[in-house]
């Protein structure tokens, strides 16, 4: 399906029931209520079939062959890069590095940039809402450099505490790495303001856009960030794909992280000249079909329109918040003023694991546990929580099914 034909389906009314038909997983599991898109989204037919079609018609290795097929494959691969550039409104497609996922993107910066620029006594600031993948790479980079990892808190309502953050900034702050939308609470952080304050303190800024990119417009120039990362698989694209956006002057100043073929200009046995970005950071044969698939996922998202997706998911998020907060014994984790598409909750007297098992037997798929955010769970005094996260295929009926399944779990464990 092309972006144009999708647009013709859905501009008038955003209809998740019709959209479900674009996702073959729901043909295999007609009763499935899938509320775990925050972990990984399901894939539309256009992505699944498009990848197979690419292998059948245009596939060869990229940037290597003189033959025409390799040229075609390279064109498709680089066209995907241009799609990502436009998707993030980056100034230049050389600012788009293809990686395996957000985790690899953050590690790339934490090794390459921190390796060169993070010095003893420097500080890296993260928020207390971060996913492990936006904690551990910085923690380890700080250990390597003799630098310090500092945590900016959220307040009791789940809101990012701007005053506390501002007070943490100092000339020692070298990097501020925060999520755009929390993968646990769904809190939408004021990242443009965070970037502005960080820059006035002389720090660089990386934003983890995993949860934001599939559901709201993102403009890296307007945000003013130095790095922006996301995973393809959470954005209806294939697993094993991801993007590091880095402002060109940032990337240009960074040494390679992984080395090998594809990222070199000239190799002698005791010396190598490296390519310019982005190829400097893409050693080895990349996930060519993955990048093509990610481009198709972007077509899918743009076909629906990110404003429309956001409006739809905001509505369903609001409905879910209202519905779940009316259930006795269900306690929603605080998410601040602005919340999008992710909500976590605790069911009084029930362990999240038991809730998850009962929900699963009602064909409601949710995530249970610590959601790769153990420090946040410790702060909230919870061993874990139940998380429902939305995709374009969810609507209010799914939330009703979720609520009914929670009530069934409560009934089952009633004392």
């Amino acid at each position, binding site marked *: 399906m092309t972006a144009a034909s999708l647009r013709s389906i859905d501009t008038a009314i955003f209809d998740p029931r019709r959209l479900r038909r674009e996702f073959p997983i729901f043909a295999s599991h007609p009763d499935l209520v899938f509320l775990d898109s925050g972990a990984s989204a399901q894939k539309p037919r256009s992505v699944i079939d498009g990848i197979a079609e690419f292998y059948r018609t245009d596939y060869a290795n990229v940037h290597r062959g003189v033959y025409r097929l390799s040229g075609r494959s390279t064109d498709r691969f680089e066209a995907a890069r241009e799609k990502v550039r436009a998707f993030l409104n980056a100034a230049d497609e050389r600012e788009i590095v293809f990686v395996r996922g957000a985790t690899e993107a953050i590690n790339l910066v934490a090794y390459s940039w921190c390796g060169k620029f993070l010095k003893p006594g420097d500080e890296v600031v993260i928020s207390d809402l971060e996913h492990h993948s936006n904690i551990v790479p910085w923690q380890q980079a700080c250990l390597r450099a003799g630098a310090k990892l500092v945590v900016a808190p959220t307040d009791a309502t789940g809101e990012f505490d701007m005053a506390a953050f501002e007070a943490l900034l100092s000339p020692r702050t070298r990097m501020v790495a925060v999520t755009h939308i929390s993968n646990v609470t769904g809190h939408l952080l004021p990242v443009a303001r965070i970037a502005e304050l960080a820059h006035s303190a002389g720090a660089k800024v990386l934003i983890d856009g995993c949860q934001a990119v599939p559901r709201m417009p993102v403009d890296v120039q307007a945000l003013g960030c130095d790095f922006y990362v996301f995973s393809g698989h959470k954005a209806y694209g294939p697993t094993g794909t991801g993007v590091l956006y880095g402002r060109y002057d940032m990337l240009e100043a960074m040494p390679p992280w992984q080395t090998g073929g594809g990222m070199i200009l000239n190799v002698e046995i005791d010396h190598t000249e490296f390519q310019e970005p982005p190829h400097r950071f893409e050693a080895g044969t990349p996930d060519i079909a993955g990048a093509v698939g990610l481009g198709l996922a972007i077509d899918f998202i743009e076909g629906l329109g990110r404003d429309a997706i956001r409006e739809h998911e905001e509505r369903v998020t609001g409905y879910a918040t209202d519905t779940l907060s009316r259930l006795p014994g269900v306690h929603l984790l605080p998410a601040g003023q602005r919340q999008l598409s992710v909500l976590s909750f605790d069911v009084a007297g029930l*362990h999240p*694991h038991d809730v998850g*098992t009962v929900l699963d*037997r009602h064909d409601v798929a949710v995530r249970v546990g*610590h959601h790769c955010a*153990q420090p946040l769970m410790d702060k909230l005094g919870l*061993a874990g929580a139940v998380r429902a996260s939305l995709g374009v295929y969810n609507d209010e009926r799914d939330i009703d099914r979720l609520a009914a399944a929670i009530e069934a779990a409560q009934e*089952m*464990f009633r004392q």
Partner: protein
Amino acid sequence: MTMDLRELYQDIILDHGRHPRNFHALEHPTHLAKGHNPLCGDRVTIYLAVEGDRIADVSFEGRGCAISTAAASLMTEVLKGKTIAEAKALFAQFRAKVTGGEAGALPERLEEDAERLEPLTGVKAHPVRVKCATLPWHAFEAALKSGLAAQTVKTE
């Protein structure tokens, strides 16, 4: 409610999950170990008071799902008064039942205890929950090996 859920959450499991037996620390343990399931954050500490080759007392503390709490509770009930060899035989039998492996025959005197553990074998149909049921047993095994060194075993 689907049958298969009732099979997993039998009344005896719900009862032990809500009202765990032997749920406290021992004042003078000879052995103790902690179990941790990083997947769900469950934690359990097993305390043993071993006299000679017999488990004179056994207890546990921790927080976990209904399955792991009931498994720990039932385990402490059957282990009390057993010899170490008997306890190990019961674990081998139990592990085989929940993972679908082969278990050797149990001495007749232990059959009643094995039967008490039977309700937990419903986890067989829920592979991601098997570790919940075996976590306290793994901690028990670690306690036997490490004495008071308070070793932590992980399911992952």
